[in-house]
Each structure stands twice: as C-alpha cells, then as structure tokens.
C-alpha cells in the first residue's frame, strides 16, 4: 500500500476529567489533524463507551479509514475493546493503535498542564507514525488433538489420568518404574486421615 493511500483516524478521549483534567484535549485533537495521513481527528468524552465506539465506527465508514489511533488509556485495559470495535466496522483489528495519554501522561503530570499536553501530542504523533506502518494480522486456528500424555505414575499422575480418562479423553500414562504408585506406594499410612496409602 502506498503512503498516499493511508487514511488515519485519531480519536482523542477526555475520559471525563481523567485526561482532560491535565491535558488540553482540544489542542491535542487539533494537532492530530495536522499529522501526515490523518483523515479525521475527533474528540470524545468517553471513547470506550457505546457512543464513543459508535463514533469510531461511523468515522471508519465515512472517511473510509484504514488505520485508527485511539488516544486514551493503557492498551493493557482497552486494546481488546477497540480491536473488537474496529473489527465490527470491517477493519483488521491489528490496524488499531492505542496512544496511552492517561496512565503514562495525564495522571502522572497532574499539575503540569503544559508538559502533559506537549507530551500527549507527542504520544499521539508517535502512535500515528507507528499506525501508518501497521499491517493486518490474522490469528489462525489450529486443531487440538484429543489424546493426552501423563508423565509419571505417582499419586498425582494417577489422579490426573483417572480424571481425564473419566472425562472421556484417551490418556497415555508413562511411568519409569515397573509399577505405578511412586513414593506414595512405599508409605505405610498417610496423614491426616491415618489410612493406608494404596
């Protein structure tokens, strides 16, 4: 895909006052619109909310976006949310990039609005630069064999083999010694019930 085919949508989240409290989100949105290949830059109150996600989907269709940058919280929180969101709108989920302007920015620089805003702009810029190079990725499905191998026939290997076999799976239990039983079989009685080990 040639660079001039790129159409990036940037969605800047205020997260109520969580981000907007220390970052000038209007300035960030305006700045985002000036970045290369950015087709639209939109500010939301809560991007993760239903209306916020609808906004993303709407803009993907309207602007025929092929990259999305969500500037909000940590991807460790909402990456699955926004991946699903862009997938619903027909975009490969790996073409969505998150810019963490909350945990790594607004919350860490509460009394430095200028510094936080400058940093937020930078974070969005870096994310757009990365987003431009993202490629669609597919999570392929592989079949799983139904048999299971249990290595060791002591009390643990015996129990897990019986559980799995009772549940309907074919178990291959491999024991090094000539008999199963392991150390448990050599014990006379076992606590706390003081009953026989075998």
């Amino acid at each position, binding site marked *: 895909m040639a660079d001039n085919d790129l159409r990036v949508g940037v969605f800047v989240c205020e997260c109520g006052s969580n981000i907007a409290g220390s970052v000038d989100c209007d300035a960030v949105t305006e700045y985002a619109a000036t970045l290369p290949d950015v087709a639209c830059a939109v500010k939301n109150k809560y991007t993760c909310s239903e209306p916020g996600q609808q906004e993303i989907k709407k803009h993907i269709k309207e602007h025929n976006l092929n990259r999305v940058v969500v500037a909000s919280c940590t991807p460790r929180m909402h990456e699955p949310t926004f991946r699903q969101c862009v997938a619903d709108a027909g975009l490969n989920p790996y073409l969505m990039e998150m810019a963490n302007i909350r945990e790594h920015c607004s919350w860490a620089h509460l009394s430095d609005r200028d510094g936080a805003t400058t940093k937020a702009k930078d974070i969005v810029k870096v994310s757009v630069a990365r987003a431009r*190079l993202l490629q669609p990725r597919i999570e392929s*499905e592989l079949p799983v064999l139904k048999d299971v191998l249990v290595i060791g026939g002591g009390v643990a290997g015996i129990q897990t*083999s019986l559980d799995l076999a009772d549940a309907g799976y074919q178990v291959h239990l491999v024991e090094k010694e000539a008999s199963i039983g392991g150390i448990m079989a050599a014990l006379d009685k076992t606590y706390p019930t003081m009953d026989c080990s075998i």
Partner: protein
Amino acid sequence: MMDVGRHPRINLQTYSEIDDISGYIGNFHVTVRKKARYVDESECNACGECEKVCPVVAPDEFQEGFSSRKAIYMPFPQAVPSVYILNNDNCLGHNPIACGKCAEVCEKSCIDFDMEDQLVEVDVGAIIVATGMDVYDPTEMDEYGYTRYENVITSMEFERLISAGGPTEGHFMRPTDREVPKRIGFIQCVGSRTKNGRGNPYCSNICCMNTVKDSLLLMDHYPGTEIKVFYIDIRAFGKGFEDLYQRSKQAGVQYIRGVPGEVFEDPKTKNITLTVEDTSSGAIEDHEFDMVVLATGVIPRRDSEIVRKLLSLSRTEDGFFMESHPKLKPVDAPTGGVYFAGCVESPKDVKDSVTQASAAAARSEILLNAGEISVEAITSDLIVDNCTGCGICVRVCPFNAITGGDAKAKIPVEIVEAACKGCGTCAAECNFDAILMKHFEDAQIMAQVDSILDQDPMEKIVVFACNWCSYAGADLAGLSRMQYPSSQRVIRTMCSGRVDSSFILHAFEQGAPIVLVSGCHFADCHYIDANRWTVKRVEKLWDDLEKMGIRPERLQLEWISAAEGQKWTKTMKELEEMRQAVTEEEVEQTKKVLREARLKVEAKKKAKEPKEGAAEQAPAAATA
C-alpha cells in the same frame, strides 16, 4: 492404582521413558521408550513360579534394602500392572549352563531373554508433567551418622519398618538387634531449611506432619514408647493438621524446640545419644535413644532434567519446575499445552498432589475440549532469503519454536508459528534481518524512535518498556497518581528481549540524550528467560559505546515489575537528572561518531555486494 490398570481409556506404559517430544500446544508428537522387562506383559499371570526357582538374591529396593528379592520379581505385592520383571543386571542369563531356570518353569512361556526396547509413538494435544520428587539423602550430613550408625534411619525407612507389608510385617524393630525400640528420637528438617550449603534452604512441607503421623503410629502399636521430636518449627498448617499434632502431644510425644548438632553411638549398646540446646529453655541437654529417625526432606527428581529440556521448562530457585504464574497459574507450565501435577512443581503431601492433579486435568481439558486454539498473531516470521542458517535464533528462542539451520550447508531455520509466543528475541538477535516480528516490526519501532526525536530530541528520554512488567509498572504509577517529570516517551515491546541494538543506536544517532531499556525481573519474564539476552545485549552495547567514546551511562537498564509503580517513578526522576546533565556538544559528538560508524558498515556491505554480482556475471561474459 487398580482403577488405572483396568481403565479402558488409559494406555498404561510402565518401565518406560520419554525419548523425545516435538511439536507444540495441541499437537505434540511423543516417542516413548518401552524398556525391555524380559517378561511378556500381556501373558504373565503373576503365578510366581519363576521367582521360586530364581537363585539370585538382591536387595529389595521397595523395602529400602531391608529385605531381599530375586532377579525376577514383582516390584511389590500390589503392583500395577501385576506383572513380573526381570532385572537384567542381576540375572545370570539365559545360557542353560549359567541358569535359565525361570524360563523352564514358566508354563505360559512369558520370559523372553531376547526382548528389546520398543519405541512407541503417540500424538497428544496436552502433556501433564507429574514426575514427582526424590527424597533427600542425609549421608552428607555426617554429624547425624546416617549409614555410620545402623540405628539411625530415615523417615522412608521408617515407613517400611512399620508397614504390615514391610520386611518385618509391621513389627517395628531396630536394625542392630531386632529389638523393639523403647526410646525413639525424631530429628526434623534434615536436608531442609539449611543454610550451610548442604541440603536445601526451602521447607519440604511434608516432614513435620509425617513425623506427627509416625509418632501416632508408634504410640498406637507400642503404647508407652518414649518419643521425642526435635524441631525448628512445627508447621501444622493444613486442615486437620493441628488436631493431629495435639493428639500426638496428648499421647505423650514430647516436642523439643531445638535441632541436635551431632549424634553419637554407644559402641556397646548401639544406642544413640544426642546433644541439643532446647531453645525454649536455653538448657543444653543429652538424650539417649534406642533409635533415631531423620525426617528427611524432599528434593527435585534427579532425572527430571530430561523432561525439562524436552519441554523447554525452567526451574525456580529451589530446583522445582517453574509454573506460569506463582499465584494465578500455578498449574500451567510456561510452555503452552503443558501442565504440572504434584511434587514436580513443589513439595506436596498426598492431598495437595491430588488437588493439583485434578486441577491439571481440568486445565488441560479446557484446551482439549475447545478442539482448536487460536494462534497468537504476534509471532515471528522468517524472511527465508536473508537467513544464513547461523542458528543464533534457535539458541535464543525460549520456547524451542525455531529449529534447524545449517550455516555451512546454507539451510535456513524453520519457525513453528504455533510454538512462538512473540517475545521477539530472535528478531533482535538476528544479524541478517531474516526475522520479521509481526506487529513489532523493525520499521514500526524505528518509526516510533524517529517520531520521538524529530523535534526537541534533547528534551526527551527514549524508554523501551516490556508489555508485561515495566509498561504495566508505568501504568500502576499513573493509576496511583505518582508524579514524575514528563520527559520520557515510551515504546512498548512485548518483551525487553525484542529491543534490538540497532533501535538503541538509532535513538542515539537521532540525538537521544538518554535511552532506557526496561523489563521484568529475572524469573518474572513472561518468556521464561528471554530477558537474559537483553542483559547480554545491553552489556555488549555498553562496551561498544565506551569504545566509541560515548558515555555508557546514557544507556540505562532497569528491571521494573508490574507492581513497582514506585520504582518506575523513582527511575523516571533519576533519568531526568541524567538527561539534564547531557550536553548538546556530547549529543552532537555521539551523532557524528555513530553516523560515521554506520556509514562504514554500510560501505563495507556495499563493497561486498557488487563483488558477488561481478563473480556471477564473469562466467556469463566469458561464454558470450
């Protein structure tokens, strides 16, 4: 045990070992070596005629050597399968002149002296590792006289001596004179909680309760026996444990807080005397016993290394196998599709082993029942044309996901996508740009570096943070509203192992005053030990930077866990101080040096290319 033997869905392979395992989660190919037992398992009906005529006598391992067995024998009466085995090391052989008596009397002709090991292949979706543990051998703790004094025995030997199925049919007696001991001492923590280099520093979990149990068995069989237990702490933490401990005390067992320094045998009576400081009274006391039992600890199985290597597992510091997460995934191995049951993961009693075994069954069923798994999209991809087959990626991959490669024969490596977890260490280590790390491609990360530094580079600190620990630690710092300067710009990678030297050098060449590489602490790495390669790489870079006249301190390495928001904050403040100390001249000089070095390397590469091209063209020109 019997249930296992007769279960229609359990294929029991005893006297067998794992020879090889290949494949990955959901699709493992396993080679099992079924060792020759010289007795046909399907025919033997355990009649025992062979044993009667066997002339060889050998120590019986099951009875801890207290009694003997023949060269052809049943491991123990309740063995499953109930089949004889011939020990080839003990057997006199099938030459009729030497022996061969067992084969003569076996009506079903089950005994085959020419039997060979068989290789059995199985394909499975999941693997449960339940290889168990070994018991600590206290011989090295010479002060307790084990093996020097016959009346000093281990807790495993105790089990056989008190067992109705044991060599004495449950009549407890001391080895020297076959008398029932009237005074018995138990020494706890033998081989556990030691600090002197012998034994192990960890608690073996089971020995306190095992001794409590032993004391009650003795009191039950021989009321009035004088029993003293010497301990550091009695750990009776499980359900019903404290009750049992109190019952033991009420039955008259004395618990003395203090571990003896040494024991002595009276050469005449063969009695054992020990000296101990009772730490609750401070008194130094001598105690004489007819017999002393060492409550020996538990150690990782000595032969577990084979399985560990085949499945690319790691060990925690205590030597037991490392789980995926100590609290949240205690049953899963870091290798996909592999689960732990029992003492392989840590010392456990029967109840805990059974609990974990059922948990392992349930965890593996989640995978088996799903029928298919989605493979991580963030995996590495081979650019075949660039691969020289040098195999460095094969060495660094923590998951054995890369195989093959032969530099001499110019055979490229192969990447098993399903086994790849996406740490990216291979891509960082590859010197030939032959590995593309999907979603964390070189070009993408370089674009981030460029974008960070294209304006006011002097004001910024470039931070590489691994997804699982350091990035999460930064998240926690934010969540906890910890405040720090706004100068750093974070580039997320899945693992610090992904951070290629070229990213760091590029950042310096673009004018970065300070670069930080941050990742998980050792043993916390989500990719087993990929971060060890991070260290090696950074250490090499420090050397290289120094040689080029660049202050190595400008490249920092920190381990910051997901729980260490505070450490993140502190690190950011320190880095900011460092950044302010970097001068513009210094950065300009760095840029110049690195640019020159890069151009040199590029020129060298270029000089090589046309040569090869010319060589190819030359014969063509000649023919023309």
